[in-house]
């Protein structure tokens, strides 16, 4: 990493690419062009090495052990908590609850805070561009408690209808659950404004940061959201790692989630008392290795700098948008003024699945389908899109390969 400078990243992704061994592989006899970063990002050597090092040198169960290995593992595990706290700008380390990803974080809030606080007749507002994982948990709790999940409409350009949001916000609104950046469209939602307006009617706000954490600079204190979730594997970290952030005063008063070891203070058959934050929500042996390695992913991002990465990715986005718009019959779905480096598109007379198969045959990995946002696809009257999503290691040459691959595939299909 010491060879890497900011200017190198901005002018040439080669130095960065060397840190990601998978990018050297061939697919179907061609060099891999990995453009499915919104699904998961590839892992830098630092992360891969951290995993190997943990299992080779200090694998032990954490928190309880008195021996050296347990202490080393505990220190590394807790170091990730400090890094996550800084990365998202939380006020306190105990506001960071480790989860296996964004989905688990949302479910944790649904089954604890929402189950207790959402009552019959209450409303949970979600945007029309939510991932299924930020819809279904609320439907489950709303169904149990006699509440309603109400969608906030999405406009033609793929932005949230803010005036509709204002109309839908009422005293009945107890929670607004909204995605920071859309996985399907790339739209960046004005979360600060959403939080402020929701708080004005007394509603809590959960922000789904699954797609934003890797791309955007932000601070949960500045955002003032009540809950924030993200997945480690979408920020160059291992699968099965992630965190839920919650304001301390909320987490302290919420009921427990999973019962088991670690989350208790004392257990007896007369009654059990629970551990303090954050351990209250971390029952059982956690995902130690992947959580430890997550720190290495976040350090990697910090070392290059989120602003630098953002600038580079915005350059890629603009370049790719211009190039794809030249392709006859291609229509980009989602043209919000503020976007992460995600492009979803449809092509006249061409099924996304056919495009995906032919691009794969050229070594190009894109995502096709509804991207777990069926209500959003219904909103646009389409069954799905083809989605290309870029990361810090995506090169301009790869975008050229995508453009050329698309042109050739479309020609073959039509």
């Amino acid at each position: 990493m010491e060879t890497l400078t900011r200017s190198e990243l901005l002018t040439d992704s080669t130095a960065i690419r060397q840190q990601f061994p998978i990018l050297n592989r061939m697919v179907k006899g061609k060099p891999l062009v990995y453009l499915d970063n919104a699904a998961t990002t590839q892992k830098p050597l630092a992360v891969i090495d951290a995993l190997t090092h943990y299992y080779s040198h200090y694998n032990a169960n954490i928190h309880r052990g008195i021996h050296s290995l347990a202490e080393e593992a505990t220190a590394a595990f807790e170091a990730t908590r400090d890094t996550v706290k800084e990365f998202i700008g939380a006020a306190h380390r105990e506001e960071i609850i480790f989860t296996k990803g964004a989905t688990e974080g949302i479910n944790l809030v649904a089954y604890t805070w929402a189950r207790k606080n959402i009552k019959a007749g209450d409303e949970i507002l979600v945007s029309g561009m939510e991932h299924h994982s930020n819809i279904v948990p609320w439907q489950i709790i709303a169904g149990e408690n006699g509440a309603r999940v109400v969608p906030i409409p999405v406009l033609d350009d793929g932005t949230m209808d803010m005036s509709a949001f204002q109309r839908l916000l009422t005293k009945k609104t107890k929670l607004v659950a909204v995605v920071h950046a859309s996985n399907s469209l790339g739209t960046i939602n004005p979360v600060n404004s959403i939080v402020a307006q929701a708080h004005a009617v007394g509603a809590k706000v959960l922000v789904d940061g699954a797609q934003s954490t890797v791309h955007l600079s932000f601070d949960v204190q500045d955002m003032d959201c009540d809950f924030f979730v993200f997945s480690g594997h979408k920020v160059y970290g291992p699968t099965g790692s992630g965190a839920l952030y919650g304001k301390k005063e909320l987490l302290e008063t919420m009921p427990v989630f999973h019962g088991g070891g670690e989350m208790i203070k004392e257990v007896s058959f007369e009654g059990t008392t629970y551990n303090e934050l954050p351990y209250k929500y971390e029952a059982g042996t956690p995902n130690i290795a992947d959580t430890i390695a997550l720190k290495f992913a976040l350090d990697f991002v910090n070392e290059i700098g989120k602003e630098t990465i953002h600038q580079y990715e915005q350059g890629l986005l603009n370049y790719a948008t211009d190039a794809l718009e030249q392709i006859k019959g291609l229509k980009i779905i989602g043209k919000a003024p503020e976007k992460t480096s995600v492009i979803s598109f449809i092509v006249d007379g061409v099924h996304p699945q056919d495009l995906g198969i032919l691009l794969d045959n050229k070594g190009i990995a894109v995502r096709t389908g509804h991207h777990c946002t069926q209500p959003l696809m219904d909103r646009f009257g389409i069954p799905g899109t083809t989605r290309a999503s870029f990361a810090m290691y995506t090169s301009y040459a790869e975008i050229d390969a995508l453009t050329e691959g698309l042109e050739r595939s479309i020609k073959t299909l039509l």
Partner: protein
Amino acid sequence: MAVRPTIEELEEEIVENFSLFDSWDEKYEYIIDLGKKLPALEAEHKKDENKVRGCQSTVWLVASYSDGLVHFKADSDAVIVKGLISMLIQVLSVHTPDEIIQAKLGFIDRIGMTTHLAQTRSNGLLSMVKQMKNFALAFKLQNESAKQ
């Protein structure tokens, strides 16, 4: 009555056709061509109950039974999948229920389709085969109960 080719003979034809191609680009072009040539299904058949589950694209499959033989017709909104169905129809259509049920369909593997395509569960090739065999089984059972 003309001698019907067996399922194995029809499979062999497809394998021979594929052996002419050097690259997957050519194989896909061939499959796409088959897809384009397969006649579109009449609108009245394009209903939910004829949809094959397990496909990322929409696949409609209908079967009819006459003179002891099963006939298949199908369509899809995706052309590669349509080409795949076209091959399945080419092999399985106009056979007895027993022949269809017992078909091993080794050609799918032999033309490299299982390693190249079916790994992406989305194409639903296996779902289509299963659905075609289910139709054959249903006609067989219908046939047996009619005889009793």
